[in-house]
């Protein structure tokens, strides 16, 4: 995520691929670089780069690495003869997903539900609080220590309190997801609002713009990339919160499923639960990644345009 700093309009495209930059650098300064070690390295690098930059390779890369991880996992467990009670193989874990598909489906749906609801509350709350904190220095000073203190409290310590208030189950899971995920949203929205260029503020103020004008015309649009970047972090954190609450106090959800699997020494099912959570996390992250790309194209123009 590029932090659209001052003069966003004049700065060079945000994220040029790092390897391309170095290559261009060496080409630009042939005198020094070439005498050192460049010639053989330079011959090889473009070829590697060509393979790496190939469109198909780019598409395939995440799948290849993920698949690779599973293969390594499988081979390592088999090769070192690790007992299933310590670490099941990848295939056993996937088999468990299939075997317990009905239960997993139900529990995953519950986890997804509590996560998304908690996250949605966090978005609304985070936007409002972020706007307040970012637009006024006094509010920032007043709330900042409290926010940091609150964020430092391990959420697992809060769950028992929530259970006392709301009983076990859905509500504590939603609240934990909310509590754990609103902080990055607040911080990012506030940062986006607070880093407005002073010249631009002067231009607007001299025209007679009110605080609200500045916030609506410049503040919020400018904070959008920050906001969307925080959503990607927040949604994955929300999963952490809901699953955490489910493992401590629930009879529903993937967290509960894993706790009960653990009490039955069902290692493959435990790992199946992990895989399902990870998959849901990736899917939601990617969803917000796409939304971000579409809605703030101006901020990711260097990497998003192709």
């Amino acid at each position, binding site marked *: 995520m590029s932090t659209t700093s001052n003069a*966003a*309009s*004049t700065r060079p495209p945000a994220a040029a691929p790092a390897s391309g930059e170095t290559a261009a650098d060496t080409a630009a300064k042939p005198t020094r670089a070439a005498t050192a070690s460049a010639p053989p390295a330079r011959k090889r690098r473009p070829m590697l780069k060509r393979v790496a930059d190939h469109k198909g390779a780019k598409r395939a890369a995440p799948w290849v690495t993920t698949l690779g991880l599973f293969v390594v996992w499988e081979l390592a467990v088999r090769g070192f003869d690790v007992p299933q009670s310590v670490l099941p193989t990848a295939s056993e874990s996937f088999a468990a997903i299939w075997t317990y598909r009905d239960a997993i489906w139900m529990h995953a749906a519950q986890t997804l539900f509590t996560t998304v609801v908690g996250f949605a509350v966090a978005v609304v709350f985070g936007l409002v609080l972020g706007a307040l904190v970012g637009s006024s220095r006094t509010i920032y000073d007043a709330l900042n220590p409290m926010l940091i203190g609150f964020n430092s409290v391990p959420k697992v310590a809060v769950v028992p309190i929530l259970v006392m208030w709301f009983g076990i189950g859905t509500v504590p899971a939603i609240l934990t997801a909310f509590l754990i995920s609103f902080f990055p949203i607040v911080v990012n929205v506030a940062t986006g609002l607070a880093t407005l260029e002073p*010249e631009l503020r002067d231009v607007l*103020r*001299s025209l*007679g713009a009110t605080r609200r004008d500045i916030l609506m015309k*410049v503040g919020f649009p400018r904070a959008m990339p920050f906001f969307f970047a925080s959503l990607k972090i927040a949604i994955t954190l929300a999963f952490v919160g809901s699953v955490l609450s489910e493992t401590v106090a629930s009879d529903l959800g993937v967290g509960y499923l894993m706790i009960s699997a653990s009490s039955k020494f069902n290692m493959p099912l435990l790992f199946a639960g992990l895989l399902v959570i990870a998959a849901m996390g990736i899917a939601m992250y990617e969803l917000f990644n796409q939304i971000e790309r579409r809605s703030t194209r*101006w901020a990711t123009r260097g990497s998003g345009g192709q």
Partner: protein
Amino acid sequence: MTAGFVELDRVRLQYREGDEFALDQTSMTIKEGEFVAVVGPSGCGKSSLMKLVTGLMPPTEGTVIVNGQEVTDPISIVGMAFQASTLLPWRTTLQNVMLPLEIVQPHRSRLRRHRTEYEDKARALLAEVGLSGCEDKHPWELSGGMQQRANLCRALIHEPRLLMLDEPFGALDAFTREELWDTLQALWMEHRFTVILVTHDLREAAYLADTIYVMSKRPGRILEVRKNDIPRPRDQDTSFTQPFVDLVHELRDHIRTVRAT
């Protein structure tokens, strides 16, 4: 006393109590339609002058009068442009230029109903600075010089009677800068707003201004007021004529003595 359009009377400005004065005993009288340049060494309070005249900051002592009224709050008959173009990257060039219309009255309340009329006006202004065809481009698709042209349009769209420029061409290369001098001069000769141009480029001051104020180091005072009668329109050839070269030399000498003290 002949009242000027912009009048500074023994103005002092201090950012915080106990600080050194940023401006000291500064008096200026600027006529309506005059093109004024303020030159001086860096840190001489030129930018403070901008804030004073636009009402973004009240003077510590003395008075600032613009258009017959003492300035206490931001005044919207002014347009501003800085070295950084600060165009909004999520807006097209046309939308950027129209931003002031969304803020300044009476345009603000008229904008919705008379949008096409205002859009035509913005397009015409963009055409005047040579940006026809760039209306729907985003700022990052424009070169630095084009961005500054658009920035000038944004400063002028609400027809301010006073244009404040703070080193607007400072970040541009020499050729582009001189092109923009011509653009600004043409705009000024066409619309005849009052201009206060803060700059450290002495050739720029000599090329554009009717009156040049030379300021001292901090605390900033006005040391010299120099009239510049070189006939207009001035062009690149003018800048090689003897009067022009002499004027730049004279200003140079002033600055040199200021910096030496």
